[in-house]
Structure formats: structure tokens, C-alpha cells
């Protein structure tokens, strides 16, 4: 994620980045082009708002003809801003950041596996297949007022693994992966979280890590494995796993029309576009209708807990409207964060926000399982 400073000098000032930026469309204080020019010319980046407003969704990086690392330049800028004493506005007073910070501070006996009890989910603490639950248990408590159910994705993943004859381990000593800390320029907290998670991987010695969250997957692959060599095994998103084993899953006919939103961390950051589609289409009877802007051009959910504002809401409303216009019953996503942000957009009393159902891919696939499905 470190961007050699010289790469910025390649910028031609063409402005493609700003023209595709979902934020710049509604919030003129952010312009990736201006940001890159300032960096290239060595001028100070003074508009802090712009630094916090970026979604790091890589829409701009993908279009840049000069391959300037635009999104990767943002975390170092945020770090500089923090060093200057500037702070992001942060959603809900940054309670989620505080939660991650507390996890980084001590090895507390976490009670994060309660969701296992009320279900017939088969897990085994000694299994070498590790299901990484991420922050989902905390999200469901903290965002209960938004009717967020990110644990449905985790439960779905357990059911899918069970149907494939795998019994995963879920661990109480897992911590936040530190993705948000890393991307928001809070390197210290990230490193503390990573150090504790790396010790956990050393204890668990998994042979396969399955995630439901592309942010966790990206962080485990790009940061943990590169910096610390852990986990020393494959890290796979549950959508990939389903795509690889479509023939082995007994899936019942499910009459439904869905549309899929590519999460930026799964799509543009990791270029996994076919896997989630293959996973959804493995369900017989399921009709997948593409959004007008999909795959590499997909619009980000505008999830940014550093600076959630009117622009975020408009991006989300546009996305939900585009989803509703496809005529689908359900908007499927493969990222718990996308679910939270889009549900949040729906939670107001604004009648112009389409009220279509939002579900996680793992929950949709698990719901179609012939045995053990919900």
C-alpha cells in the first residue's frame, strides 16, 4: 500500500480520476486530480476534508492512464493530517474505532461467539479450516437500530462449509483485522491489532482461512501475509469457495431475481468479479440482473466512517435506485460493510430511497441449501 512518491509525477492532469470519482460528483471539496497535482508539485495538501472524504474505492486508480496510485496515496496523507492534529468527523463518534482500539489494548476474554448457540451450526475449535468472522458480532449489536444482520453471512458461511463436508473453527480470540485503522492513517492501532492476530494465527495454524468480509480478506492477504507471513495458508472469500464447489452443494430451486453490488475490496482491489457471480448463479432458479455499472465500474457503497455526509447518502440512494430499477427483489452484496452502509441509507424516513431487501451472498446461497439451509 505504500506509494513511491515518484509515481505521482506521472500524472498528466487529465482529470479522468475526478470525472469517475463517486464522491466528487456530489462533493466538490474532493478532487483526486487536484490532490495528485498538489502532491506532484510538492504543494501542501491543506484541505483536510478532501483527505477524509475519499472512499479509497479505486474507481480512479482503475481509470488512470498513467497508473498513478491514487487510493494508496490517501492513507499516508491521512497519517500526515493526524500528525498535524487534524481529525476526521467520524460516524457515531467513532465508537467502532474505539472498539477496535480496546481490542488492540489487551488480550480480553471476548464473548463473541454467542451466535453459535442458537443454531445447528457445526464448528470444531480444533479444525484447521478457520472461519474468520471479522467484526460482524459487534456490528449486529451496534447497528441494531439499522436492522443490520451481518451475522447471517457468517452463519451462511458455516452452513455452506458444513454442506461441503467441512467443519470450520471460529475463534473467540480473533480481533478486528485493522483494515479501517490502516486505511484511515492510524498505523499504530493497526500494528497492535495485527500483532495480536498474528499470535492467534500462530496458535491456530490454519490450513485455510475463509472470510465473509472482503476487507478482512484484503488485509490478511496484502498486509498480514506480506508483513508478518501469517496466516501461512490460503485466504479465501466464501464466494470464491462456493464458486469452486458449485457441483458439490445441493442447492434447491429458488425463484428469485437479484442484482449484485461488487464490493470495492473484492472487485477493484482484488479483481474478483466472476466468483461472486458464479456463486449466485449456482442457485437454480435465481436470476441475476446486472446493475448498469458493474464489475470494475461498480459504484462503491460510499461507506466511509471517517466522513459520512450528504454526498454518501446521495451515492447510496443512487445505487439503491439503480438496483430497484433492475426489477430485482433483492440487492445482494458480499461485504458486511456494504450491507451496513446501504441499510443505513434506507433507515431514514426519506421516501425517495428504495426499500428493496439487502442480503449477503453467503446468506442467499445458504438459504438455498437442500439440507441444513435456513
Amino acid at each position, binding site marked *: 500500500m505504500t506509494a513511491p512518491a515518484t509515481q505521482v509525477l506521472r500524472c498528466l492532469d487529465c482529470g479522468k480520476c475526478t470525472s469517475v470519482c463517486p464522491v466528487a460528483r456530489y462533493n466538490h471539496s474532493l478532487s483526486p486530480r487536484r490532490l495528485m497535482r498538489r502532491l506532484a508539485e510538492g504543494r501542501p495538501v491543506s484541505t483536510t476534508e478532501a483527505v477524509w472524504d475519499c472512499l479509497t474505492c479505486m474507481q480512479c486508480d482503475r481509470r488512470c492512464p498513467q497508473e498513478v496510485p491514487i487510493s494508496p496515496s490517501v492513507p499516508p496523507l491521512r497519517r500526515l493530517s493526524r500528525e498535524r492534529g487534524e*481529525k*476526521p*468527523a*467520524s460516524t*457515531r*463518534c*467513532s*465508537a467502532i*474505532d*474505539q*472498539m*477496535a*482500539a*480496546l*481490542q488492540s*489494548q*489487551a488480550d*480480553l*476474554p*471476548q*464473548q*463473541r461467539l*454467542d451466535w453459535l448457540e442458537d443454531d445447528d451450526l457445526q464448528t470444531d475449535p480444533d479444525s484447521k479450516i478457520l472461519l474468520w468472522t471479522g467484526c460482524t*458480532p*459487534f456490528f449486529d*449489536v*451496534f447497528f*441494531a437500530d439499522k436492522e443490520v444482520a451481518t451475522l447471517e453471512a457468517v452463519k451462511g458461511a458455516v452452513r455452506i462449509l458444513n454442506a461441503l463436508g467441512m467443519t470450520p473453527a471460529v475463534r473467540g480470540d480473533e480481533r478486528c483485522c485493522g483494515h479501517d*485503522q490502516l486505511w*484511515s492513517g*492510524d498505523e499504530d*492501532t493497526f500494528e497492535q491489532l495485527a500483532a495480536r492476530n498474528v499470535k492467534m494465527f500462530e496458535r491456530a495454524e490454519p490450513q485455510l482461512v475463509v472470510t465473509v468480509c472482503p476487507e478482512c480478506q484484503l488485509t490478511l492477504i496484502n498486509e498480514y501475509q506480506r508483513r508478518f507471513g501469517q496466516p501461512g495458508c490460503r485466504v479465501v472469500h466464501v464466494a470464491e469457495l462456493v464458486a469452486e464447489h458449485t457441483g458439490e452443494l445441493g442447492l434447491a430451486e429458488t425463484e428469485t431475481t437479484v442484482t449484485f453490488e461488487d464490493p470495492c475490496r473484492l472487485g477493484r482491489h482484488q479483481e474478483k468479479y466472476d466468483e461472486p457471480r458464479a456463486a449466485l448463479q449456482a442457485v437454480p432458479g435465481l436470476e441475476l440482473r446486472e446493475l448498469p455499472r458493474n464489475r470494475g465500474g461498480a459504484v462503491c457503497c460510499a461507506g466511509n466512517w471517517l466522513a459520512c455526509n450528504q454526498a454518501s447518502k446521495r451515492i447510496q440512494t443512487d445505487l439503491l435506485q439503480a438496483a430497484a430499477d433492475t426489477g430485482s427483489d433483492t440487492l445482494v452484496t458480499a461485504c458486511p460493510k456494504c450491507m451496513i452502509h446501504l441499510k443505513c441509507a434506507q433507515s431514514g424516513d426519506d421516501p425517495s430511497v428504495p426499500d428493496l431487501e439487502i442480503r449477503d451472498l453467503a446468506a442467499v446461497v445458504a438459504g438455498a441449501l437442500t439440507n441444513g439451509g435456513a
Partner: protein
Amino acid sequence: MSGKFDPRIVVFACNWCSYAGADTAGTSRIAHSPGFRVIRTMCSGRVNTTHVLQAFRMGADGVLVSGCHLGDCHYIFGNHWAIKQFDITKEMLRMLGLETDRVRLEWVSAAEGPRWAELIDEFVARITELGPSPLRGEIGDTEFAAGPVGAEVEVGSS
């Protein structure tokens, strides 16, 4: 200081009832434990999950949130909002692995000086029983004491 556990307790008291209640306890010269630090908020409904988590992050052993009795809120429904937020906070702390007895939500009116004193003594006793918070880390007593007064408290950033 060494050997004896001196609990660090942060109390969020609302401006209209509880803070005045604490005042009543003081002016009435009711002896009670001095081992707590009061942060005055306009309403108990102002105290959200972040404030409580931040207190623990800064080395607190216990956090008490106190407001007007239900029905007496200066802002009509602020304390109902406080209940909602407190329930979330408590559940988050439980999941994080902290004893839920380390946090408490109570109602104290401006006239209830004796009740305030009793409540504080009770809470201090419970926290003393539980011992130091595992999140204290290397945060020293002086550092903690200096926190809210000397340093800039940064709620709203990590």
C-alpha cells in the same frame, strides 16, 4: 499508592439532576468515597458508547452514567435515549470481554444527596471487588488523573 488498589471511576452526571445531586451530597457534608471523577454533561442522553469506551481506553476501572429519573428529564426523553445507548454499550463491553458490572446507569435527582453518596460508595466497593481493569495497561495514576484536566480529550477521533 503501591499495593492498595485505588479504583479510577469516571462518572458522567447530567447537568440538571445528578450533578446537582452530587452537589447536594457535598453541601450536606455527607461523607462518601472521594475516588471518582465527575464529567458533567447536559443530559445523560448525551453519553454514548464512545464516551464510555474512551474512558476505559484511557485507563478507567469503572464508568457510572447518571441522569434524571424517568419522567423528570429536562429534555423530556433524553434519559430514555440514555437507556438505549447504555444497553448497546453494556453489550459491547460484555462481548469485548469486560465485566459488565464495571458500568452502571442510575437516576439521581437534585434532592437525593444521600442517595448519591450511597450509590457512589456502593459502586466504588463493587469496582474495588472487581479489581483493576485489564485495559489499564501501563497508564499510570498521574497520567490518568491528568487526562481529562490537563490533556485535550479527544472524543470523536481514534
